[in-house]
């Protein structure tokens, strides 16, 4: 174990340094060595953490050999050369299983690659495995996986958050420096916060969802995890941009790093409805964010107090819109063309209904029922149309807020990581974990979660930066400036990877 996590281990450098060393022919570090080191760490730690559902050494080593061959041939293998990449198991990697942590897709292997995965690999990344998630990305703890929960590397009796909990745990534990996730209501930012790393929910339309198993198509975005803002940016820069295979993608300014912003003159907004100091267990999270706000003011930033009244309705709105879209998207799982098929069905109708009952887990069924009801005859106006109107109005409230400030700052989650099993029998309590994240998806705006110290139990907390459409490059600039100003950042969990 010691050698796996030795000081100055190549996997614990920044992505930029790692890739530069692989690209430098005079440096002895090869992509195959980096990938081998990541595979060794996964081998040693995955039984404990269950971050990966599937490890893909053949795929990773083949990609690493291609990178090393390009270096030897004097070609540029790309900005992520040789960097091990973990991929949430709702994104397609050809030749590897794609399960969505569901029995219904337990034996599914996609023939093509997700655009985000293909672009990361084209930039030199090497896919070391597929990470655990709540089934079909429905959940906030990764306990809804049909294949067992993932554990938080800071305290293995606690959840890593979700739904991209496997990706967050893998990066936090240093098993892979980068990971891809998806965020429909907070599924990148919430686990990033609970695992003390950086996670980015990009603007709707920045990253292609081609090859992402659809959950709620007007909310889903693919995004990166990294130990620092710079690492997350490197992956986001590789995967961003229009894609003919996803009609919702569009060109927007690149997230490439720009001049670091001066904190003097920054106008940051504090939204009254995002204050969790009075929420049970929320005092530590709000106090941690308040500490950062004080540092910002000391550096010359201006505080802007705001109210966005519709934020209080974002959970009810989200839990109509997302299940409604999910009930429609998941209609494709019928036991006919792919996925699990019930064996004892004697009619086409029972083939559908039994295959779906056997294949889907309880939370997925619950969301399908919520969504089907919200769209059903006699109820669609009261629920779905009402929620969509609230969504339009919420977007207008964010637009107005960003006329008065450059960025909104809040906690990412009301509390740090909760215990495994603590909320698994209470679906509504689990839904309320998303209270600080779903509004960004409803509005289509970007938001970044960055480490914000520890709570009184020593568990990581997250701070969330929200910006207007297309601003995630600036949010990442600000994240880096904040980390430099406050000293807050990734701290490796005991027994795992070292500093990035």
């Amino acid at each position, binding site marked *: 174990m010691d050698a796996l996590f030795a000081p100055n281990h190549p996997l614990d450098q920044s992505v930029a340094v790692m890739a530069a060393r692989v690209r430098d022919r005079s440096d002895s570090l090869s992509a195959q060595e980096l990938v081998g080191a990541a595979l060794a760490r996964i081998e040693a730690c995955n039984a404990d953490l269950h971050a990966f559902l599937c490890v893909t050494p053949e795929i990773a080593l083949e990609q690493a050999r291609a990178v090393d061959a390009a270096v030897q041939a004097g070609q540029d293998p790309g900005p992520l050369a040789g960097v091990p990449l973990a991929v949430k198991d709702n994104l397609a990697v050809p030749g590897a299983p794609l399960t969505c942590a569901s029995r219904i897709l337990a034996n599914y292997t996609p023939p093509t690659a997700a655009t985000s995965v293909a672009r990361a690999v084209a930039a030199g990344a090497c896919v070391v495995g597929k990470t655990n998630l709540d089934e079909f990305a429905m959940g906030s703890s990764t306990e809804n996986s049909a294949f067992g929960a993932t554990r938080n590397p800071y305290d293995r009796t606690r959840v890593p958050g979700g739904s991209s909990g496997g990706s967050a745990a893998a990066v936090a534990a240093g098993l892979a420096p980068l990971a891809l996730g998806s965020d429909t209501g907070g599924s990148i930012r919430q686990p990033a916060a609970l695992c003390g790393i950086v996670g980015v929910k990009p603007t709707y339309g920045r990253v292609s969802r081609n090859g992402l198993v659809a959950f709620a198509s007007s909310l889903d975005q693919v995004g990166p995890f990294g130990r620092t803002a710079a690492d997350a940016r490197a992956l986001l820069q590789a995967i961003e941009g229009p894609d003919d295979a996803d009609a919702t993608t569009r060109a927007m300014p690149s997230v490439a790093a720009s001049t670091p912003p001066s904190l003097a003159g920054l106008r940051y907004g504090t939204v009254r409805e995002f204050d969790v100091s009075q929420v049970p267990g929320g005092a530590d999270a709000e106090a941690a964010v308040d500490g950062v706000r004080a540092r910002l003011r000391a550096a010359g930033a201006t505080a802007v107090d705001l109210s966005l009244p519709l934020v209080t309705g974002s959970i009810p709105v989200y839990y109509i819109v997302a299940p409604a879209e999910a009930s429609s998207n998941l209609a494709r799982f019928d036991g006919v063309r792919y996925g699990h098929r019930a064996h004892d069905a004697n009619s086409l109708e029972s083939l559908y209904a039994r295959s779906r009952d056997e294949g889907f887990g309880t939370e997925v069924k619950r969301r399908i029922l919520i969504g089907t009801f919200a769209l059903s005859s006699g109820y669609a106006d009261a629920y779905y149309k009402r929620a969509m109107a609230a*969504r339009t109005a919420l977007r207008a409230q964010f637009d107005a807020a960003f006329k008065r400030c450059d960025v909104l700052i809040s906690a990412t989650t009301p509390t740090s990581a909760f215990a495994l099993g603590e909320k698994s029998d209470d679906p509504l309590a689990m839904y309320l974990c998303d209270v600080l994240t779903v509004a960004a998806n409803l509005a289509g705006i970007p938001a970044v979660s960055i480490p914000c110290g520890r709570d009184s139990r020593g568990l990581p907390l997250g701070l969330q930066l929200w910006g207007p459409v297309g601003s995630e490059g600036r949010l990442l600039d600000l994240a880096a400036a904040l980390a430099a100003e406050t000293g807050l950042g990734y701290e490796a969990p005991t027994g795992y990877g070292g500093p990035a």
Partner: protein
Amino acid sequence: MDIDETLVRHVARLARLELTDGEVADMVPQLSRIFAHVDQVQDLDVGDADPATQAPVGLETLRGDEPGPVLGLRDVLSNAPDHDGAFLVVPRFFDDASDEG
């Protein structure tokens, strides 16, 4: 919103989910609590906001109506639960009389 077993069974039928009796019994109190919360949407002040906007950003461009590469038959059938040659196999769903018609 009153949610009872009859409503859960009706919605499950619409969703083509064959729930067990135990699943139906569990869903009633869970969905009741969830909808008690979700019903807050009725009280939100949304002004005259338009519910018709489907996506958070406008779809300025649709791709051209040009055929592109498609999956080959082998790839399409590689994950099929049951197939015969180029065809997916499903249980028989016409009776003999309608079959002949």
